[in-house]
């Protein structure tokens, strides 16, 4: 029989036939590995989870024209730089001064679905979201000032450039007029309440000018660094538009994220330290309990190196078992946390399995160093003293 086979036979026998003793050590390692694997899963998944949460607070990137207004093709060129999976919503806007009951109002033409996705926090106070042509979504302030209610029909008029000169000369002006139905009242608490929203097609029809935009709001599910990277790519490849980040959103997202990740990291370190203390304590007890056995091994010829190798072998086998249990339970733990806190499932990271096992083996090995060193100090003569 090879020495290695006998070595494996000894350390497995020690763990398997002394189960009640080793189960405490195995439990502490497995719990440590579970929390470690779970927290690391959460650590890496938090940006994705929180990113999705933050997208409820609106767009985090704005496209503006590099030279005044820009076209739909420019918007598409910009959007093309962001992976579809990360683009939560994109809403191009065109603003025009129109009149309702002869009073000036700013009309915003947009893609209703894009606006809804980019600004999920917009609250429809009354009525419903803008859907199709002929519908008007009024900001709460506009609705208040005109005492307009959902369901009312109103005319919106626009004076084209050619007619504005006539107005200056006090001549009769031919305004473009279109009739709309108020479908909803918008409340945001911000400047959005001062606009009248309509579909982009309706604003084109009203103004008679096609394919011009003033701004586009993009909601991208990505961390600050990635966002900066996308903005730089858009600025380099879409000459018609300039991308900038909404600092208010991205900065707070980065702050919250880094604080949360630091917290998770801190807890992970504390758990690792506690695991090490627990394993070291258990191994110290194991060594104390096995002093006679160590003395016997030394008496029949074991060198200090052999004793270290055997105890380290046992520790590492414990670390391996604890790591395997921990990586499975860690995934379950992270999944539970993710579902309960973020209401979404966590993705399985296969790489985390070998990492958890290796860390578990290393941590167990390190925590066993001192107790194992004390094992080599046992005097072999104690077995002759009839103790």
């Amino acid at each position, binding site marked *: *029989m*090879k*020495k290695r*086979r*006998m*070595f494996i*036979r*000894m350390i497995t*026998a*020690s763990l398997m*036939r*002394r189960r009640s003793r080793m189960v405490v050590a195995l439990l502490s390692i497995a719990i440590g590995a579970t929390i470690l694997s779970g927290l690391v899963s959460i650590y890496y998944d938090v940006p994705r989870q929180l990113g999705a949460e933050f997208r409820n607070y609106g767009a985090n990137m704005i496209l503006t024209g590099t030279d005044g207004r820009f076209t739909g093709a420019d918007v598409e060129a910009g959007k093309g730089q962001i992976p579809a999976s990360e683009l939560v919503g994109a809403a191009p806007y065109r603003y025009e001064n129109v009149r309702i009951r002869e009073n000036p109002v700013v009309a915003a033409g947009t893609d209703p679905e894009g606006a809804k996705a980019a600004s999920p926090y917009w609250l429809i106070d009354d009525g419903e979201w803008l859907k199709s042509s002929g519908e008007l979504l009024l900001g709460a302030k506009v609705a208040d000032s005109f005492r307009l209610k959902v369901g009312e029909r109103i005319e919106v008029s626009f004076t084209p450039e050619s007619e504005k000169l006539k107005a200056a000369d006090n001549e009769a002006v031919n305004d473009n007029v279109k009739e709309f139905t108020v479908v909803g009242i918008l409340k945001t608490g911000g400047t959005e309440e001062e606009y009248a929203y309509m579909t982009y097609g309706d604003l084109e029809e009203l103004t008679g000018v096609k394919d011009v935009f003033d701004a586009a709001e993009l909601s991208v599910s990505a961390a600050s660094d990635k966002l900066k990277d996308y903005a730089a790519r858009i600025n380099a490849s879409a000459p018609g538009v300039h991308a900038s980040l909404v600092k208010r959103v991205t900065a707070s997202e980065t702050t919250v994220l880094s604080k949360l990740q630091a917290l998770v990291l801190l807890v992970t370190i504390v758990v690792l330290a506690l695991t090490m203390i627990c394993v070291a304590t258990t191994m110290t007890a194991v060594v104390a309990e096995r002093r*006679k*056995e160590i*003395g*016997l*091994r*030394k*008496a*029949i*010829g*074991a*060198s200090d190196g*052999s004793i270290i190798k055997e105890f380290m072998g046992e520790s590492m086998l414990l670390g391996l078992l604890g790591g395997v249990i921990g990586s499975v339970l860690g995934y379950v733990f992270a999944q539970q946390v993710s579902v309960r806190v973020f209401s979404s499932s966590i993705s399985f990271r296969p790489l985390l399995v070998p990492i958890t096992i290796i860390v578990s083996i290393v941590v167990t090995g390190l925590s066993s160093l001192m107790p194992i060193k004390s094992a080599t100090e046992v*005097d*072999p*003569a104690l*077995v*002759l*003293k*009839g103790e």
Partner: protein
Amino acid sequence: MSLLELKNVYKIYGELHALDDVSLKVEKGEWVSIMGPSGSGKSTMMNIIGCMDKPTKGEVLLDGVDISKESSKSLTTIRRDKIGLIFQQFHLVNYLTAVENVMLAQYYHSIPDEKEALEALERVGLAGRAKHLPSQLSGGEQQRVCVARALINYPEIILADEPTGNLDEANEEIVVDLFHKLHDDGTTLIVVTHDPEVAEVAQRRLVLRNGKIAKEVVNEHFTGKIRFND
């Protein structure tokens, strides 16, 4: 040249002389028993002969090598290669089977060989109990496993510390009988015992008192094949 020779050996702990100018020769193949009351220096002598302790003064020659000057690392090697130990409390590793306990001595000595370990167990009449754990064996059986472990590496000397101290009469007889067989095979035996019956079957009996050899008796009626006096 004697296999073991102690020349004016002292072991002093503060004021206490655990061994006080002890000189002794043990020839190859000899069976010597050491008796003496508690505190007479038996354990100290066993530790020194068993390479687990060094004398304060004097020489201890084992196979011509002065072990009192060796490092603890080479003492481990000497102990592993030349000495087989038998203990009063057997000291079997409780989670290893009988055969694995025997193989443990092979593991530290050279290469474990299960067949050879089983043969050693057969020699002590335990072939059928090889796969049993110590907790499943009687005291006598455990001591026989201990004997098999001690002889597996063909040591120069077998050193037994109260080998029958925890055994009943029947098992004591079995173990003494095993000693006879080992002696007949040419193994050198040094047995520390309180039991006069066990001591008397040896070729030579030493009585220690206050760290000195107080009495030395040669067994004229020794029945073994090898007679030291022959």
